[in-house]
């Protein structure tokens, strides 16, 4: 639209009062009105960082026709109302909390860097309208597909869960059953309780991590990994961050995948935005040294990514 306006003003200057040109410009402007009207997009994150600004910049480059601005959180939080055509992209649970405080449903908001467990903790199953969640946790069926691809012989899958992740169990069980795997769930609210972990591991062949910070965190990961590794069992997930610690593998969505996802989403009308989604694009990350130690045959991330993408059910 901006380009056309410029074009028009240039035309006016060059052909002062030329009626024909005026007609063309009016027609052009009318045409423009029929094109989608792209809103102002405000992106904000819990913490200001070069990485966030870089992300905003890359997103703006990917969507040149959108007006995408990065706004630091402190500045954003002073707003109580926004222009009508504003859309928000908010990163992190604290901004979700802030957004939940706003009484009005506008502006339409995309929530990122919030996991299903974090969202569930805030509003259980009563998800607010006008918020679209782009889940940060890897989708469980994708994780299970990865587990199946890397550990073809396993049957009994252990899942440690807490109060906030209990709601995922049914879904996990169904997804495991679809792959002919058996779920062994273990309520593990107390991470000191290493014996429960040992008992679980005595029944299982591998562990599937759920992205619940009460279960998987810097304090607990050591005992989970040492106990499972001592029994030659792998942990899949809960997220890519745990691979460095010694988890075998995880699927994850990187910045490029997210930009592709946002690109598609922001170009569709707001009223078609889903309540939540997992991005289509993903990659696989593998801890090669753990894979080697456990004698895992298929451990190349590119091959695994390709295999998982090929086997993905049609939407």
């Amino acid at each position, binding site marked *: 639209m901006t380009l056309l306006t410029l074009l028009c003003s240039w035309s006016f200057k060059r052909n002062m009062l030329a009626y024909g040109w005026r007609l063309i410009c009016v027609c052009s402007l009318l045409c423009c009105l029929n094109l989608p009207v792209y809103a102002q997009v405000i992106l904000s994150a819990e913490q200001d*960082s070069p*990485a966030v600004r*870089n*992300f905003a910049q890359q997103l703006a480059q990917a969507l040149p026709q959108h007006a995408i601005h990065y706004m630091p959180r402190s500045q954003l939080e002073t707003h109580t109302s926004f222009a009508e055509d504003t859309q928000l992209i908010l*990163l992190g649970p604290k901004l979700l909390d802030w957004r939940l405080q706003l009484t009005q449903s506008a502006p339409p908001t995309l929530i990122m*860097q919030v996991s299903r467990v974090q969202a569930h903790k805030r509003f259980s199953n009563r998800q607010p309208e006008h918020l679209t969640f782009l889940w*940060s946790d890897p989708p469980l069926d994708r994780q299970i597909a990865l587990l199946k691809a890397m*550990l*073809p*012989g396993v*049957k*009994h899958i252990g899942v440690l869960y807490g109060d906030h992740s209990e709601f995922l169990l049914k879904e996990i069980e169904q997804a495991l059953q679809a792959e002919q795997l*058996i779920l062994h769930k273990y309520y593990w609210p107390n991470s*000191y*309780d*290493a*014996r429960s*972990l*040992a008992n679980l591991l*005595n029944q299982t062949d591998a562990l599937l991590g759920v992205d619940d910070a009460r279960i998987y*965190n*810097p304090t607990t*990961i*050591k*005992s989970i*990994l*040492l*106990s499972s*590794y*001592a029994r030659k069992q792998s942990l899949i997930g809960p*997220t*890519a*961050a*745990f*691979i*460095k*610690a*010694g988890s075998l593998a995880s699927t*994850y*969505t*990187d*910045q490029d995948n*997210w930009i592709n996802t946002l690109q598609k989403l922001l170009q569709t009308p707001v009223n078609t935005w889903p309540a939540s989604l997992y991005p289509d694009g993903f*990659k696989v*990350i593998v*801890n*090669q*040294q*753990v*894979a*080697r*130690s*456990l*004698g*895992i*045959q298929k*451990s*190349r*991330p*590119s091959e695994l990514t390709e295999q998982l993408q090929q086997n993905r059910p049609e939407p």
Partner: protein
Amino acid sequence: MQRIDLKPSRVQFSILLPSILTLSLSHFAHADDLFISDLALPEVLTATHLYQPPAAVPGSISTIDQELIAASGARNITDLLRLVPGMLVVPDSANLGTVNYHGSSPGQARRLQVLIDGRSVYRAGFAQVDWSDLPVAIEDIQRIEVFRGPNTVSYGANALLGVINIITESPKDTHGTLLKSTLGENGIRDWYARQAWHSDRSDMRLSLSGLADDGFDTRTDGTHFRDGRRLSRFNLRANHQLNEKSSIDWQLAFKEGTNQVNNNYHSIFANKIQPKPSEQDPNSDGQAKDYAASLRWTTAVNSQHSLSLQANAQQWQRLREWRGCEAQISFSAELNELWDISSPAQRAALSRGKFFNNATARQLDLQRWLANALSPQFIEHSCGLINENSRESRADLELQDTYSISERLRLISGLSYRYDQARSKTFLNGRQRKDIVRGFSQFEWYTTEHWLLQGGGMLEHDSSNGDSFSPRLAVNYLFTPAHGLRAVYSEAVRSPDMFENSADWRYRVHDLRPTIGQNSTGDFFISAQSSGKLQQEKIRAYELGYNGHFAQQRISFDLKVFEEKISRMISHTPRLESFNLNNNDHIKFYGSELEANWQASSKDRLRFSYAYIQDRASNTLDQQVTPPHSGSFAWLRNWENNWNSSLMYFAAQQLNSNDLQLMTLRVAKQFDLADKRLTVAGHLQKTLNNQPIGRTNNKDNSHDTAYATVQLEF
């Protein structure tokens, strides 16, 4: 000990192979990706924590895991070792089991290194492993790893034929309480109690246990076999996490008990004396006490470099004293002198009660004196206390350094010092001691994605046996990380133990009744001394093997062919009257071994082991020991409703002169009572071929027994 050569780091994530390198880098190039959060997670499974995959091991390893241990229902560690191909388990008596790998006389089972949590437990002075007296309860064992083949490079002298690594449960895996009791035939009365606690950074486990049984029913001749045992144990193990990088693990273990032994003292002048039964003890039971303490400090310098320091102190006390009767002349100065000045051949004649020719003038005089003393139909006797007491101790310190020099090359090096001491008036005429200093280094080098070269050596200085160097070189070809071929050459040594090297074996009998003259103490005339010139035994071993794991089918197996030659071998049955040890013997083993494990379904596990071994032994003691065919089969099944069963079958053709066909059956039911778990199990052990096990004193079917176990966990 065997760990893989991989290195983690933030950017170069475990990159061994160029192809993976590119991939890994491409994935960790996004390490500052906004969407891959860095949660400040510790690197837990670093290169120093990771074990080699089975296909990359420079040798063959059998693992007896906790599921197998529980399913076996075994009360003795030796019974578990029957699951290992090539492992020869022969019970001399019920309280004295022997374990050998491939062969050599059961009476000299001292060619295996046995470790409990890294602490070498073969006796300091007599080099044997008293399996029944180890201060560890079977319930405390997390797994047993058996390295089948020489491994002096990693474990020092005595790892001549193999290494048995007993690894106990980590305190933090055993939080809570466990109570267990076993009752059964043959006086089986076992109990076990365990409690484990934790605090913020520490975990601690205390276990107390006891074991009692009457041993085998009868001896070969049908008489009662007095080989029962009663023992109790204390074990305390703790782990403290000092900080993110360092931890301390310590352990205290104590065992005390009594092992029954018949009074097998037979007077050399038996037909000349008439002792009354009341004058001597019918039995000569032994008291065994084992004390052990160990401390291990581990620290990760960084993710490529770690250090560990382990210190151990141990004591073995074996006390056995009993009253026996002997002719008074046995304690005479004359007979002592005659023995001392006689050659081995002359001594052999004397000990058979015969006079010898080619005697010197003095020997002739003394023989005449003896003939005169023996002229009455019966001669005077005295009865006194004979003892075979010994107290052995060991202190050792080992520093180990694991360093990943590059992504493809890792070094494990170390230094250790060990002090061994043994005191025994009877066997050593006092105290013997030795110092051992060792330095070792091993490398693991992935030359390509498929080729792995591993080698190393150990230099050992033994103050009583001199210096030795033991090398090993192995090449593994890995088709995939789960399938590999290997070729291994290794050398190893075994130092003669203190008794072999420095025996001064003599019986000083106390409290003689009646006294001889004014003396209530007398030196029995037969004694034996070691030449002190023994050399180390040496083995050269070649192995070709294949190890594979089929993940989809859940089958893993290991196949190897081997040839082992032990030279300068010391073969003997220690006999007081004919004690002449030398390095003149040799033995050669060759054959093949197979071990397979198949998780046939989610409820069924099958395990199979088989060994074909041929031996060529120069000494008759070592012949007819090795079974040409031996093996085991195990079927573990989980039935519905928390029922499970295990059936194990062990067979060997001519294991130490007798065929072995042993079957064990265990049926267990678990009840879940709120937060408690109750397990009730019945166990049956039966020999199927009516033959005793090995060339031992036990009669056929003596091994048959049934017992039941109740276990409560909360």
